[in-house]
């Protein structure tokens, strides 16, 4: 859809500068948003996307620059002030109250009242109406926590519509949605665009950006790279602008992964008939030295569940596991670690990174846990380990004393990876290591995985991004509905074929 550039922008930000202690988070950035457009804000993690959004929504105070909304100069000192001016935000983590009903979450703070009392019938009727506008049929009296994240995300958007927003900011709304849910969200976004709402869309999925956006603004290192019409900016040009260098690495990665694996000896890990009632159906998995096994399948297909059985985070109630041909029982992550298996969770914020500790502490943590608390890792040794891994993985900023919680998602992931690599595992289980991080960090992490496996590390690589799985893995275990439906050689299949296999193949049928 063409955007009429003659329409005056609803939001005009000029020369926005925000200074954090030690960091220039935004440096004289201009940004404009027009009614009836979907405008993608792109950049690597740490490029300043979140900061720009928070400046617009009154969370951060801007050090210099101006914000105009509908032609009038505004200074927002709180989210509430921005909301009053018609700017609403839906965040990556659903920011609603899970303990309240759906209807109340939509209407909270704007409940219709009669004689000073909240009129609950009207609240639910009104909420129902707003949800219907987005094509949602929900029991508004049900508790929000009884719905999926996707539905909660859409409820959050309905809430924004109650505020009669002229500007809707969607910060990574799709990162936890499956394909069908994304479609539903996009349909809603298009409808809102037709009705004249200006939408600011942040996503790491390039496909999605190209599918739904009209215009793209690119940020890099806190500065503005430029504003482009989607039609004028091919994908590789976008990526180049985002990372500031050419993207040649990925081809190199797949070359490195494209090698024969010696499958003569005993596999590093071999699980047969491993399963758990209510979790995942019994499946066989084997990994040889230096091999990368990809787990592919939709979100919720049992990929994570299968990995958790291997790692002992959940207890398998059937099947056997062998490591180097010896029968072992792995009933806890600790035992897994003793057998040289390391696991990096998909839920890096809750199950991985410890936000209040420094980068160095987060990295040393794993190796200290492995040795036990009586054998302290000496300072000199710590420093050396930390320095090596920060350099090897390209953690930015390369400051070991930085609070890990202040790092961007991609860099937190690198720190996690460093933590496990420092324990010198034989098998590394990586669950969605590239989710929600930028292209540059994605490439860094993939390159590292390829490099390490080339040197003999075995890896189980789980990702929703099939391209990544295909690029890195030699064999791919395909999951659907909590069953392993097959195993493919990554040479024999491309992305389209893999999607087709996930969608159509019956369990037990032969791979192409």
């Amino acid at each position, binding site marked *: 859809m063409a955007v009429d550039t003659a329409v005056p922008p609803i939001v005009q930000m000029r020369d926005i500068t925000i200074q954090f202690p030690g960091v220039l988070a935004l440096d004289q950035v201009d940004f404009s948003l027009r009614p009836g457009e979907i405008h993608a804000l792109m950049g690597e993690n740490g490029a300043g996307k979140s900061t720009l959004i928070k400046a617009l929504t009154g969370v951060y105070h801007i050090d210099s620059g101006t914000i105009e909304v509908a032609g009038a100069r505004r200074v927002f000192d709180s*989210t509430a002030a921005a909301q*009053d001016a018609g700017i609403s935000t839906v965040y990556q983590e659903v*920011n609603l*109250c*899970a303990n*309240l009903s759906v209807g109340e979450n939509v209407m909270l703070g704007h409940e219709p009242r009669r004689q000073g009392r909240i009129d609950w019938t009207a609240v639910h009727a009104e909420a129902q109406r707003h949800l219907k506008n987005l094509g949602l049929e929900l029991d508004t009296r*049900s*508790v929000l926590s*009884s719905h*999926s994240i996707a539905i909660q995300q859409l409820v959050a958007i309905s809430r924004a519509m109650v505020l009669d927003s002229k500007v809707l900011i969607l910060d990574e709304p799709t990162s936890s949605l499956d394909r069908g849910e994304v479609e539903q969200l996009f349909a809603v976004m298009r409808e809102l665009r037709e009705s004249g709402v200006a939408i600011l869309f942040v996503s790491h999925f390039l496909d999605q950006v190209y599918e739904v956006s009209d215009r793209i603004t690119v940020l890099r290192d806190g500065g503005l790279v430029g504003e482009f019409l989607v039609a004028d900016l091919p994908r590789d040009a976008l990526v180049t602008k985002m990372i500031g260098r050419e993207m040649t690495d990925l081809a190199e990665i797949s070359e490195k992964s494209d090698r024969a694996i010696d499958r003569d000896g005993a596999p590093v890990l071999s699980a047969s008939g491993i399963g758990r009632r209510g979790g995942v159906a019994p499946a066989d998995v084997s990994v040889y030295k230096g091999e990368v096994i990809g787990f592919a399948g939709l979100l919720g297909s049992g990929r994570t569940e299968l990995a958790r059985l291997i790692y002992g985070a959940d207890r398998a109630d059937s099947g056997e596991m062998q490591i180097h041909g010896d029968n072992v029982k792995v009933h806890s992550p600790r035992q897994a670690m003793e057998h040289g298996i390391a696991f990096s969770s998909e839920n890096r914020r809750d199950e991985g990174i410890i936000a209040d500790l420094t980068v160095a502490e987060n990295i040393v943590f794993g190796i200290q846990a492995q040795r036990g608390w009586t054998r302290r890792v000496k300072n000199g040794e710590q420093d050396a380990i930390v320095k090596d891994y920060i350099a090897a993985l390209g953690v930015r900023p390369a400051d070991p004393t930085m609070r890990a919680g202040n790092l961007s998602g991609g860099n937190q992931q690198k720190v996690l990876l460093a933590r496990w690599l420092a324990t010198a595992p034989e098998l590394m289980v990586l669950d969605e290591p590239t989710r929600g991080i930028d292209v540059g960090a994605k490439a860094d992490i993939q390159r590292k995985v390829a490099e390490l496996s080339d040197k003999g590390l075995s890896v189980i690589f789980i990702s929703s991004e099939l391209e990544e799985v295909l690029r890195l893995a030699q064999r791919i275990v395909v999951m659907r509905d909590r069953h392993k439906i097959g195993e493919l050689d990554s040479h024999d299949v491309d992305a389209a074929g893999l999607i087709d296999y996930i969608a159509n193949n019956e369990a037990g049928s032969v791979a192409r």
Partner: protein
Amino acid sequence: MTTVQTTTADRVASVTSFLRTFTSRYASVLPTLAAVGVLLLLLMGAQSRFGNFVSPGNMSALLLDNAYLMILAVGMTFVIVTAGIDLSVGSVMAFTGILGASMLSTGVPVYIAVPIMLGGGATIGLLLGVLVQYFNVQPFIATLAGLFLARGLAYVVSLSSIRVEEPSLLWLQATRFRLGDWYITPTGIIAIVVVATGALVMHFTRFGRTVYAIGGSEQSARLMGLNVARTKVMVYVISGFCGRLAGLVLTAYSGAGYPRNGIGTELDVIAVVVIGGTLLTGGRGYVLGSMVGVFVFGTIKSVISFMGAEQSWTHIIVGALLLVFIVVQRAIVARSDRPR
């Protein structure tokens, strides 16, 4: 037309769909319903054991004896629903009582003494609320400081009990509005008005809903544009005011101010609020549930005195009940939080 046949399968299906709707809507009422169940069991058990337990006189006394606890429980419910805690209420209650009794004994007129008694507690609440909200002090720590402060002030006023002879204050306790063998005192009416007001505010005002929203997720409440700061300060002000009002009621009830009143009462209050179905983690709970909790507590106490046993058994039983309830609540919350 085909005739509709209700098969067993249909019935099962309709029951499960009813259950699903129920749990998706009202799971958070379950702990309170459980408390009602426990209360009924207690009353039935006591009635069959003693024969004359559920009598109008005894039931009326239940309200009279626990009026102060009920008032405290309302304030505490507000605080706990925001995921906070207020340890100061027992001391605040004692301080109010001794301050009032001392003023009255030195000849301060009652129309001056009572407003001072009530106003001051809100001030302590305001102080604690500001500490929690603006100085980011843990509610536990801030109100622990409040506990010591108010208790210390109570001892400063007087180290021993001071009798209250002011007739209008004693009237609150001595007057009995009768309906047959049932009666209610003005203190009981105050308690019921406080409960009703609390329940209405929690359910039908934006302030009350903000209290729940903060308990659900403070961060979300802030990003939704709700006035989190003012609300959080207000809940401590409300709790402080309830502490004061309870002090007034207790003074009328005991006919004296005593600086050692209400030691440990804050813990009784927390216990009855939790038994009444409010989660210590915030976001779920009802003022009416806390009232039920008070009745459970009061009934246990009076059963034990009926049996002639040591009153320390009250705390043993309440403690056991509390454990069971916390586990039950955990289970219910874990179930209802699982997205389907």
